[in-house]
């Protein structure tokens, strides 16, 4: 995805790898697993510090959960890095048979609706005053927000081959820094 939009990327698994990047994507996956591994491999505090020091971070799906200040329906010991003034509900649509594809209007992205795949996806249950809503489903559920250096979305644009949300992150958060 990043290669397609002309951005070079590398995998960040250790604190030293984190030090060299201009922006970070927290991808999809199992948020419980990611937060456990971040703790086990001493990535938790360095990531939290980088977020509060202004590193541009884009969280998709599980990444959104990890950026939320508060989560609902997580596991009892689940931690988040925080930063987004919002409450995010895990697995908000139910199991995999409820996973779906749709198209969404997205503030700041031109050229027609954004293609979005929601896979056991979270939603943004409530948005605090510091965060701004960028996109919602027709039923009003919020699925994309931004705040300072952080962008969080419920869905996977990359599964649909949709490049514009990643381009938006690079343009609005990384290049403008």
């Amino acid at each position: 995805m990043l290669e397609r939009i002309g951005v070079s990327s590398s995998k960040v698994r250790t604190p030293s790898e984190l030090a060299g990047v201009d922006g970070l994507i927290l991808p999809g996956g199992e948020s419980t697993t990611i937060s456990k591994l971040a703790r086990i491999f001493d990535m938790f505090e360095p990531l939290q510090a980088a977020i509060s020091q202004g590193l541009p971070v884009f969280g998709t799906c599980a990444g959104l959960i990890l950026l939320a200040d508060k989560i609902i329906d997580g596991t009892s010991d689940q931690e988040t890095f925080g930063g987004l003034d919002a409450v995010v509900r895990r697995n908000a649509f139910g199991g995999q048979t409820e996973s779906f594809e749709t198209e969404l209007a997205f503030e700041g992205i031109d050229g027609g609706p954004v293609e979005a795949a929601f896979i056991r996806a979270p939603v943004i249950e409530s948005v605090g005053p510091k965060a701004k809503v960028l996109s919602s489903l027709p039923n009003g559920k919020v699925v994309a927000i931004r705040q300072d250096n952080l962008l969080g979305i419920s869905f996977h644009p990359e599964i649909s081959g949709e490049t514009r949300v990643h381009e938006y992150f690079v343009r609005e958060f990384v290049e403008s820094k």
Partner: protein
Amino acid sequence: MSESTTGTSRVKRGLAEMLKGGVIMDVVTPDQAKIAEDAGAVAVMALERVPADIRAQGGVSRMSDPDMIDGIIAAVSIPVMAKARIGHFVEAQILQSLKVDYIDESEVLSPADFVNHIDKWKFDVPFVCGATNLGEALRRITEGAAMIRSKGEAGTGDVSEAMKHIRTISGQIRALSSMAEDELFVAAKELQAPYELVKEVATTGKLPVVMFTAGGVATPADAALMMQLGADGVFVGSGIFKSGNPIERAKAIVKATTFFNDPDVLASVSRGLGEAMVGINVSDLPAPHRLSERGW
């Protein structure tokens, strides 16, 4: 705004994408499912007996009791998979009705159909299927599988078959990639797989779906071995809950799968795990008892 659509190939294959780099663990009780989730498993496979017990006890092995599957779904928040017998589309219908997140059409259970596999396109729930070679993998994808796992020999703790299958699949993909375009027609015939899929694999150099590995993985080193050979992730069946210290072993296998390329991490997580599961050498198994030969 257009309507939203469930059960598309993208969302089915997409969930498997989200599991990449992770470990999926066989569990038979809600307590084991919690242990797996706490250890950092990306999903659990709910079943009544792990393969080592199926092997030991014999008899016909079927889909698990819905109550048992419900109990595991209620116990964890990570995806729950469950197994249906090869060709048993009604077991699959029941599992979809139970709202499992993935169905494994699995050779570990007794096959229900020795000719046909399930038509997996008819389901909203995605399927993972086993394969011992590229042709088998592509036939399963043609039938609608959204994820492939190399089969290995389940319930043995012997990683040699998993090794053979992942090397075979990867080697066949490399061979396709180096072929001239006009050779792909015969390659498709020999693989007994549709030409269009064969051509896609030749062009991209990989399967169109995520490929995990399974069958005989018992140690952190086994898991890392599979990852270094190019697996996208690992299924661990009997290896965890048939070992001396399941909690520590589960955590260690998760860490080893993430840091599969770092021998220092692998050395440290391999310490202090107690007894590994008792193994059976695949070569000691009489041919009729080899599960990997089920499926066609």
